């Protein structure tokens, strides 16, 4: 077993365990922290796949910005955990069964139809960080310029939307 594969398996274990921790934890704050751990392991996977810029974007945007926003909202609402309720008692086993079915389908398709080929080489042999950034920047501002601008408008719309949603209306009876 090469060092690369050992590192992959170890990180995969951490990623799956932290995702399960997010799913099973009763406290929303713990869930958010487990998810941060999961995002960081995925960022290390990006590094192993030779995508250093995406890895750093993952850490700053996901683990840094998005999860801090989540934690902020959880603590603002004081909604760490919910009281038990039995509105749909049959829903949970059905959901777990259907998820397992989805997973079985995905694995079946992977094994029989998709059969992706090729190996991921250690990134030191295939790419270095400066080159990766250069290529990404050139592609982003030539071939993908229109999507880039559309995303900037999308972010602006999301910002305006979030402000309008949370703003108190003037003269509204509170």
């Amino acid at each position, binding site marked *: 077993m090469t060092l690369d594969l050992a590192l992959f398996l170890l990180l995969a274990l951490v990623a799956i365990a932290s995702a399960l921790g997010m799913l099973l934890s009763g406290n929303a704050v713990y869930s958010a922290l487990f998810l941060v751990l999961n995002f960081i392991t995925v960022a290390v996977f990006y590094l192993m796949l030779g995508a250093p810029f995406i890895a750093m974007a993952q850490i700053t945007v996901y683990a840094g910005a998005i999860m801090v926003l989540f934690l902020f909202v959880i603590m603002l609402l004081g909604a760490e955990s919910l009281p038990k309720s039995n*509105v749909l008692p049959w829903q949970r086993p059905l959901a777990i069964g259907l998820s*397992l079915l*989805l997973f079985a389908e*995905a694995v079946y398709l992977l094994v029989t139809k998709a059969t992706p080929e090729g190996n991921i*080489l250690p990134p030191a042999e295939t790419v270095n960080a400066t080159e990766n950034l250069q290529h990404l920047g050139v592609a982003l501002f030539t071939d993908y310029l229109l999507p880039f601008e559309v995303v900037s408008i999308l972010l602006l719309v999301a910002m305006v939307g979030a402000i309008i949603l949370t703003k108190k209306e003037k003269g509204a009876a509170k």
Partner: protein
Amino acid sequence: MVPVDYYILLSAILFTIGVTGVLVRRNALIIFMSIELMLNSANLAIVAFSSVIKSFSGQIFVFFVIAVAAAEVAVGLALIVEIFKSRRSIDVDQMSSMKG
């Protein structure tokens, strides 16, 4: 050297955990986190494939997905805060009527 199948299998596992989270949990915030987990697993598969075919398009696509996820979280959390203000709860079982 790691076969790309392993990455795709890991992505499938994480995606399934995310789907289970959306279906099983009742806390709207945790449902949101599960959606983020699913987006992440899809990103992982995209980057793995783009690494195999040695193309940068996959990485740019993932960059756009991250930007869209950030926008989605901003609006979604604002909606959750609004729902909490009007109902004093973020239990999705209680959001059973369209009347605000």
